[in-house]
Protein backbone atom coordinates (compact mmCIF):
# COMPACT_ATOMS: atom_id res chain seq x y z
CA UNK A 1 0.00 0.00 0.00
CA UNK A 2 1.41 3.40 -1.02
CA UNK A 3 2.54 5.60 1.82
CA UNK A 4 0.89 8.99 2.28
CA UNK A 5 2.90 12.17 1.89
CA UNK A 6 2.85 12.65 5.66
CA UNK A 7 4.19 9.13 6.19
CA UNK A 8 6.89 9.69 3.59
CA UNK A 9 7.92 12.92 5.30
CA UNK A 10 7.99 11.21 8.69
CA UNK A 11 10.24 8.57 7.15
CA UNK A 12 12.49 11.34 5.83
CA UNK A 13 12.59 12.66 9.38
CA UNK A 14 13.68 9.21 10.52
CA UNK A 15 16.57 9.35 8.06
CA UNK A 16 15.11 7.55 5.05
CA UNK A 17 16.60 9.38 2.05
CA UNK A 18 14.66 7.19 -0.38
CA UNK A 19 11.41 8.67 0.92
CA UNK A 20 12.69 12.14 0.09
CA UNK A 21 13.44 10.93 -3.44
CA UNK A 22 9.86 9.73 -3.75
CA UNK A 23 8.51 13.12 -2.66
CA UNK A 24 10.88 14.82 -5.09
CA UNK A 25 9.69 12.66 -8.00
CA UNK A 26 6.07 13.21 -7.11
CA UNK A 27 6.15 16.99 -6.71
CA UNK A 28 8.96 18.42 -8.81
CA UNK A 29 6.80 18.80 -11.94
CA UNK A 30 3.78 20.34 -10.17
CA UNK A 31 6.07 22.70 -8.25
CA UNK A 32 8.04 23.78 -11.31
CA UNK A 33 4.81 24.39 -13.21
CA UNK A 34 3.21 26.34 -10.36
CA UNK A 35 6.31 28.49 -9.95
CA UNK A 36 6.80 28.99 -13.69
CA UNK A 37 3.22 30.17 -14.02
CA UNK A 38 3.79 32.53 -11.11
CA UNK A 39 7.07 34.05 -12.27
CA UNK A 40 7.14 33.24 -16.04
CA UNK A 41 10.83 32.43 -16.04
CA UNK A 42 11.93 28.81 -16.28
CA UNK A 43 15.34 29.32 -14.68
CA UNK A 44 13.86 31.21 -11.75
CA UNK A 45 11.05 28.67 -11.42
CA UNK A 46 13.52 25.78 -11.19
CA UNK A 47 15.69 27.69 -8.74
CA UNK A 48 12.68 28.39 -6.54
CA UNK A 49 11.43 24.80 -6.81
CA UNK A 50 14.81 23.53 -5.64
CA UNK A 51 14.69 26.02 -2.80
CA UNK A 52 11.31 24.57 -1.75
CA UNK A 53 12.74 21.05 -1.62
CA UNK A 54 15.82 22.33 0.18
CA UNK A 55 13.67 23.94 2.87
CA UNK A 56 11.57 20.82 3.20
CA UNK A 57 14.76 18.80 3.63
CA UNK A 58 16.21 21.25 6.15
CA UNK A 59 13.04 21.14 8.23
CA UNK A 60 12.84 17.36 8.29
CA UNK A 61 14.03 16.97 11.91
CA UNK A 62 11.37 19.33 13.21
CA UNK A 63 8.60 18.09 10.91
CA UNK A 64 5.28 17.67 12.69
CA UNK A 65 2.25 16.94 10.49
CA UNK A 66 -0.15 19.68 11.57
CA UNK A 67 -1.49 20.14 8.03
CA UNK A 68 -1.44 18.32 4.72
CA UNK A 69 2.01 18.02 3.21
CA UNK A 70 0.87 19.82 0.05
CA UNK A 71 -0.43 22.72 2.11
CA UNK A 72 2.96 23.10 3.78
CA UNK A 73 4.91 22.66 0.56
CA UNK A 74 2.82 25.06 -1.49
CA UNK A 75 2.88 27.58 1.29
CA UNK A 76 6.67 27.61 1.07
CA UNK A 77 6.45 27.78 -2.72
CA UNK A 78 3.90 30.59 -2.73
CA UNK A 79 5.87 32.70 -0.28
CA UNK A 80 9.02 32.24 -2.33
CA UNK A 81 7.18 33.11 -5.52
CA UNK A 82 5.52 36.18 -4.03
CA UNK A 83 8.85 37.39 -2.70
CA UNK A 84 10.46 36.82 -6.07
CA UNK A 85 7.74 38.68 -7.92
CA UNK A 86 7.64 41.56 -5.48
CA UNK A 87 11.39 41.94 -5.18
CA UNK A 88 11.59 41.78 -8.94
CA UNK A 89 15.03 40.30 -8.56
CA UNK A 90 14.79 38.37 -11.74
CA UNK A 91 14.23 39.69 -15.22
CA UNK A 92 10.86 38.57 -16.60
CA UNK A 93 11.52 36.99 -19.96
CA UNK A 94 8.75 37.33 -22.49
CA UNK A 95 8.15 34.18 -24.46
CA UNK A 96 7.59 35.38 -27.98
CA UNK A 97 6.19 33.57 -30.91
CA UNK A 98 9.28 34.52 -32.96
CA UNK A 99 11.64 32.86 -30.48
CA UNK A 100 9.64 29.66 -30.40
CA UNK A 101 9.69 29.27 -34.18
CA UNK A 102 13.00 30.73 -35.28
CA UNK A 103 15.70 29.99 -32.77
CA UNK A 104 17.42 26.69 -32.35
CA UNK A 105 18.07 27.43 -28.68
CA UNK A 106 15.51 26.10 -26.29
CA UNK A 107 14.45 29.32 -24.61
CA UNK A 108 10.91 28.06 -24.73
CA UNK A 109 10.15 25.68 -21.87
CA UNK A 110 9.80 22.07 -22.99
CA UNK A 111 6.11 21.39 -23.42
CA UNK A 112 4.80 17.91 -22.86
CA UNK A 113 3.33 17.10 -26.29
CA UNK A 114 0.99 14.19 -26.95
CA UNK A 115 2.26 11.08 -28.68
CA UNK A 116 0.81 12.07 -32.05
CA UNK A 117 3.24 14.45 -33.71
CA UNK A 118 1.32 17.73 -34.11
CA UNK A 119 1.40 19.61 -37.38
CA UNK A 120 3.26 22.90 -37.51
CA UNK A 121 -0.04 24.78 -37.56
CA UNK A 122 -1.41 22.84 -34.62
CA UNK A 123 1.72 23.55 -32.66
CA UNK A 124 1.48 27.21 -33.61
CA UNK A 125 -2.12 27.36 -32.41
CA UNK A 126 -1.26 25.53 -29.20
CA UNK A 127 1.61 27.88 -28.44
CA UNK A 128 -0.55 30.89 -29.23
CA UNK A 129 -3.24 29.76 -26.81
CA UNK A 130 -0.67 28.93 -24.16
CA UNK A 131 0.92 32.34 -24.57
CA UNK A 132 -2.42 34.10 -24.19
CA UNK A 133 -3.28 32.12 -21.09
CA UNK A 134 0.10 32.67 -19.48
CA UNK A 135 -0.02 36.36 -20.23
CA UNK A 136 -3.53 36.67 -18.80
CA UNK A 137 -2.65 34.75 -15.64
CA UNK A 138 0.45 36.84 -15.22
CA UNK A 139 -1.58 40.02 -15.48
CA UNK A 140 -3.45 39.10 -12.30
CA UNK A 141 -2.36 40.53 -8.95
CA UNK A 142 0.00 38.04 -7.30
CA UNK A 143 -2.40 36.72 -4.72
CA UNK A 144 -5.19 36.20 -7.27
CA UNK A 145 -2.64 34.53 -9.54
CA UNK A 146 -1.57 32.13 -6.82
CA UNK A 147 -5.21 31.42 -5.93
CA UNK A 148 -6.10 30.54 -9.53
CA UNK A 149 -3.02 28.35 -10.01
CA UNK A 150 -3.60 26.46 -6.78
CA UNK A 151 -7.33 26.06 -7.49
CA UNK A 152 -7.28 25.28 -11.21
CA UNK A 153 -4.01 23.43 -11.72
CA UNK A 154 -3.07 21.99 -8.34
CA UNK A 155 -6.71 21.29 -7.39
CA UNK A 156 -6.19 22.10 -3.76
CA UNK A 157 -9.28 22.37 -1.54
CA UNK A 158 -10.52 25.80 -0.53
CA UNK A 159 -9.35 25.40 3.05
CA UNK A 160 -5.91 24.35 1.86
CA UNK A 161 -5.59 27.32 -0.47
CA UNK A 162 -6.84 29.64 2.28
CA UNK A 163 -4.13 28.30 4.59
CA UNK A 164 -1.48 28.74 1.90
CA UNK A 165 -2.56 32.32 1.24
CA UNK A 166 -3.26 33.02 4.90
CA UNK A 167 -6.79 34.24 4.38
CA UNK A 168 -10.29 33.07 5.23
CA UNK A 169 -12.19 30.72 2.95
CA UNK A 170 -14.74 33.40 2.12
CA UNK A 171 -11.94 35.83 1.23
CA UNK A 172 -10.42 33.15 -0.96
CA UNK A 173 -13.68 32.55 -2.83
CA UNK A 174 -13.97 36.30 -3.48
CA UNK A 175 -10.36 36.28 -4.67
CA UNK A 176 -11.11 33.44 -7.07
CA UNK A 177 -14.25 35.08 -8.37
CA UNK A 178 -12.45 38.35 -9.13
CA UNK A 179 -9.58 36.48 -10.75
CA UNK A 180 -11.80 34.39 -13.01
CA UNK A 181 -13.85 37.47 -13.84
CA UNK A 182 -10.67 39.18 -15.06
CA UNK A 183 -9.54 36.12 -16.98
CA UNK A 184 -12.96 35.80 -18.58
CA UNK A 185 -12.44 39.24 -20.13
CA UNK A 186 -8.73 38.85 -20.93
CA UNK A 187 -9.26 35.47 -22.57
CA UNK A 188 -12.43 36.39 -24.43
CA UNK A 189 -10.86 35.15 -27.73
CA UNK A 190 -10.63 31.71 -26.17
CA UNK A 191 -13.86 31.76 -24.22
CA UNK A 192 -16.32 32.88 -26.88
CA UNK A 193 -18.63 30.07 -28.01
CA UNK A 194 -17.72 30.72 -31.64
CA UNK A 195 -13.98 30.25 -31.19
CA UNK A 196 -12.39 27.38 -33.05
CA UNK A 197 -9.77 25.51 -31.14
CA UNK A 198 -7.89 24.60 -34.32
CA UNK A 199 -7.37 28.21 -35.37
CA UNK A 200 -5.26 31.00 -33.94
CA UNK A 201 -7.56 32.98 -31.65
CA UNK A 202 -8.60 36.44 -32.81
CA UNK A 203 -9.44 39.52 -30.80
CA UNK A 204 -12.59 41.65 -31.12
CA UNK A 205 -11.31 43.37 -34.23
CA UNK A 206 -10.69 40.07 -35.92
CA UNK A 207 -6.91 40.31 -35.70
CA UNK A 208 -4.83 37.36 -34.46
CA UNK A 209 -4.63 37.58 -30.70
CA UNK A 210 -1.02 36.46 -30.71
Amino acid sequence: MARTDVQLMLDVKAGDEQSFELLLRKYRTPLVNFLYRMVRDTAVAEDLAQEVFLRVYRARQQYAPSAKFTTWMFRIATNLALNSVRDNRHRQMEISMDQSVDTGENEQPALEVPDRAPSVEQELVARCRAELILKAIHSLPEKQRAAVLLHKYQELDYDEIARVLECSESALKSLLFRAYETLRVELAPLVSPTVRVDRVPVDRSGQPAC
Partner: protein
Amino acid sequence: MFGKDSNEKRCATIESKLVEYLDGRAHPAERHAVEQHLSVCASCRLRAEEFRALWGALDDLPPISPSPAFDASLRARIAAEPARRSFWDWMPSPRLAFAVTTLIVMSAWLSSSPSVTTNPSGMGQAIQANKVTVESDFGMIRDLPVLENFDVVSKFDALSELPVSPGASTTEGTKETR
Protein backbone atom coordinates in the same frame (compact mmCIF):
# COMPACT_ATOMS: atom_id res chain seq x y z
CA MET B 1 -36.14 50.25 -10.01
CA PHE B 2 -36.68 48.67 -6.63
CA GLY B 3 -36.73 45.27 -8.30
CA LYS B 4 -33.58 46.06 -10.26
CA ASP B 5 -31.71 47.00 -7.04
CA SER B 6 -32.74 43.82 -5.27
CA ASN B 7 -31.76 41.77 -8.35
CA GLU B 8 -28.34 43.39 -8.36
CA LYS B 9 -27.96 42.51 -4.70
CA ARG B 10 -28.88 38.94 -5.49
CA CYS B 11 -26.31 38.92 -8.29
CA ALA B 12 -23.67 40.12 -5.84
CA THR B 13 -24.66 37.41 -3.37
CA ILE B 14 -24.56 34.71 -6.01
CA GLU B 15 -21.15 35.86 -7.27
CA SER B 16 -19.51 34.79 -4.04
CA LYS B 17 -21.03 31.33 -4.44
CA LEU B 18 -20.53 30.88 -8.16
CA VAL B 19 -17.05 29.33 -8.11
CA GLU B 20 -18.07 26.84 -5.46
CA TYR B 21 -21.23 26.03 -7.40
CA LEU B 22 -19.35 25.41 -10.63
CA ASP B 23 -16.85 23.31 -8.70
CA GLY B 24 -19.70 21.10 -7.57
CA ARG B 25 -18.82 21.81 -3.94
CA ALA B 26 -21.74 24.01 -2.94
CA HIS B 27 -24.04 22.87 -0.14
CA PRO B 28 -27.46 21.77 -1.38
CA ALA B 29 -29.17 24.91 -0.11
CA GLU B 30 -26.63 27.17 -1.79
CA ARG B 31 -26.72 25.14 -4.99
CA HIS B 32 -30.48 25.55 -5.10
CA ALA B 33 -30.21 29.31 -4.49
CA VAL B 34 -27.67 29.71 -7.31
CA GLU B 35 -29.72 27.63 -9.74
CA GLN B 36 -32.83 29.62 -8.88
CA HIS B 37 -31.03 32.86 -9.63
CA LEU B 38 -29.41 31.61 -12.83
CA SER B 39 -32.80 30.58 -14.14
CA VAL B 40 -33.98 34.22 -13.97
CA CYS B 41 -30.79 36.26 -14.48
CA ALA B 42 -29.38 36.22 -18.01
CA SER B 43 -26.15 38.06 -17.17
CA CYS B 44 -25.25 35.68 -14.34
CA ARG B 45 -26.19 32.76 -16.53
CA LEU B 46 -23.82 34.05 -19.25
CA ARG B 47 -21.12 34.57 -16.64
CA ALA B 48 -21.50 30.99 -15.39
CA GLU B 49 -21.31 29.63 -18.96
CA GLU B 50 -18.21 31.69 -19.68
CA PHE B 51 -16.58 30.60 -16.45
CA ARG B 52 -17.09 26.99 -17.54
CA ALA B 53 -15.63 27.77 -20.98
CA LEU B 54 -12.75 29.62 -19.32
CA TRP B 55 -11.90 26.63 -17.14
CA GLY B 56 -11.93 24.45 -20.24
CA ALA B 57 -9.59 26.91 -22.01
CA LEU B 58 -7.25 27.03 -19.03
CA ASP B 59 -6.88 23.26 -19.39
CA ASP B 60 -5.18 24.01 -22.72
CA LEU B 61 -2.14 25.32 -20.89
CA PRO B 62 0.33 22.49 -21.29
CA PRO B 63 2.63 21.63 -18.41
CA ILE B 64 6.37 22.11 -18.67
CA SER B 65 9.00 19.58 -17.70
CA PRO B 66 11.78 20.23 -15.22
CA SER B 67 15.18 20.34 -16.90
CA PRO B 68 17.23 17.11 -16.96
CA ALA B 69 19.68 18.71 -14.52
CA PHE B 70 17.03 19.53 -11.90
CA ASP B 71 17.58 16.55 -9.59
CA ALA B 72 21.36 16.69 -9.78
CA SER B 73 21.36 20.40 -9.08
CA LEU B 74 19.13 19.92 -6.05
CA ARG B 75 21.32 17.12 -4.70
CA ALA B 76 24.36 19.35 -5.08
CA ARG B 77 22.63 22.07 -3.08
CA ILE B 78 21.69 19.60 -0.36
CA ALA B 79 25.23 18.22 -0.25
CA ALA B 80 26.56 21.74 0.13
CA GLU B 81 24.44 22.30 3.21
CA PRO B 82 26.60 22.63 6.34
CA ALA B 83 26.18 19.90 8.95
CA ARG B 84 23.68 21.56 11.20
CA ARG B 85 23.04 19.01 13.87
CA SER B 86 23.56 20.52 17.25
CA PHE B 87 23.27 19.00 20.69
CA TRP B 88 19.64 20.11 20.87
CA ASP B 89 18.73 18.23 17.67
CA TRP B 90 19.06 15.03 19.71
CA MET B 91 16.33 16.11 22.09
CA PRO B 92 13.12 14.31 21.23
CA SER B 93 10.98 16.83 23.06
CA PRO B 94 11.11 20.44 24.29
CA ARG B 95 10.31 19.30 27.86
CA LEU B 96 13.34 17.08 27.93
CA ALA B 97 15.40 19.92 26.47
CA PHE B 98 14.18 22.17 29.31
CA ALA B 99 15.02 19.53 31.88
CA VAL B 100 18.52 19.06 30.56
CA THR B 101 19.03 22.83 30.31
CA THR B 102 18.02 23.21 33.93
CA LEU B 103 20.41 20.45 34.98
CA ILE B 104 23.31 22.04 33.15
CA VAL B 105 22.58 25.51 34.54
CA MET B 106 22.28 24.18 38.08
CA SER B 107 25.46 22.15 37.75
CA ALA B 108 27.31 25.22 36.58
CA TRP B 109 25.86 27.29 39.41
CA LEU B 110 26.68 24.69 42.06
CA SER B 111 30.22 24.29 40.84
CA SER B 112 30.75 28.04 40.93
CA SER B 113 29.10 28.63 44.33
CA PRO B 114 31.39 29.27 47.36
CA SER B 115 32.59 26.15 49.11
CA VAL B 116 31.24 25.45 52.61
CA THR B 117 34.77 25.02 53.95
CA THR B 118 37.10 27.93 54.81
CA ASN B 119 40.19 25.74 54.87
CA PRO B 120 42.15 26.88 51.82
CA SER B 121 44.22 23.76 51.56
CA GLY B 122 41.20 21.52 51.77
CA MET B 123 39.09 23.73 49.52
CA GLY B 124 39.80 21.82 46.35
CA GLN B 125 39.10 18.49 48.01
CA ALA B 126 35.95 19.87 49.62
CA ILE B 127 34.68 21.19 46.32
CA GLN B 128 35.47 17.90 44.67
CA ALA B 129 33.73 16.01 47.46
CA ASN B 130 30.75 18.32 47.18
CA LYS B 131 30.59 17.79 43.45
CA VAL B 132 30.69 14.04 43.83
CA THR B 133 28.07 14.17 46.56
CA VAL B 134 25.86 16.55 44.63
CA GLU B 135 26.06 14.51 41.46
CA SER B 136 25.54 11.22 43.20
CA ASP B 137 22.59 12.66 45.05
CA PHE B 138 21.09 13.99 41.87
CA GLY B 139 18.00 11.90 42.02
CA MET B 140 16.56 14.50 39.68
CA ILE B 141 18.41 12.80 36.83
CA ARG B 142 16.49 9.66 37.56
CA ASP B 143 13.26 11.47 38.19
CA LEU B 144 12.82 13.99 35.42
CA PRO B 145 9.15 14.75 36.16
CA VAL B 146 10.43 16.55 39.26
CA LEU B 147 12.15 19.06 37.01
CA GLU B 148 8.95 19.62 35.16
CA ASN B 149 7.23 20.54 38.40
CA PHE B 150 7.92 24.24 38.72
CA ASP B 151 6.71 24.32 42.32
CA VAL B 152 9.37 21.81 43.27
CA VAL B 153 12.11 23.49 41.31
CA SER B 154 11.33 26.98 42.55
CA LYS B 155 11.47 25.87 46.17
CA PHE B 156 14.59 23.80 45.72
CA ASP B 157 17.40 25.21 47.79
CA ALA B 158 20.59 23.51 46.66
CA LEU B 159 22.76 24.76 49.49
CA SER B 160 20.57 23.13 52.08
CA GLU B 161 21.15 19.75 50.43
CA LEU B 162 24.94 19.96 50.61
CA PRO B 163 26.52 17.95 53.37
CA VAL B 164 28.77 19.85 55.74
CA SER B 165 32.33 18.52 55.45
CA PRO B 166 34.15 17.73 58.70
CA GLY B 167 35.82 20.72 60.36
CA ALA B 168 34.13 23.22 58.12
CA SER B 169 32.75 26.50 59.40
CA THR B 170 29.06 26.40 59.93
CA THR B 171 28.56 30.10 59.30
CA GLU B 172 27.17 29.45 55.88
CA GLY B 173 26.00 26.05 56.88
CA THR B 174 22.88 24.35 55.95
CA LYS B 175 19.75 26.35 55.86
CA GLU B 176 16.44 25.09 56.81
CA THR B 177 14.38 24.40 53.75
CA ARG B 178 11.32 26.49 53.72
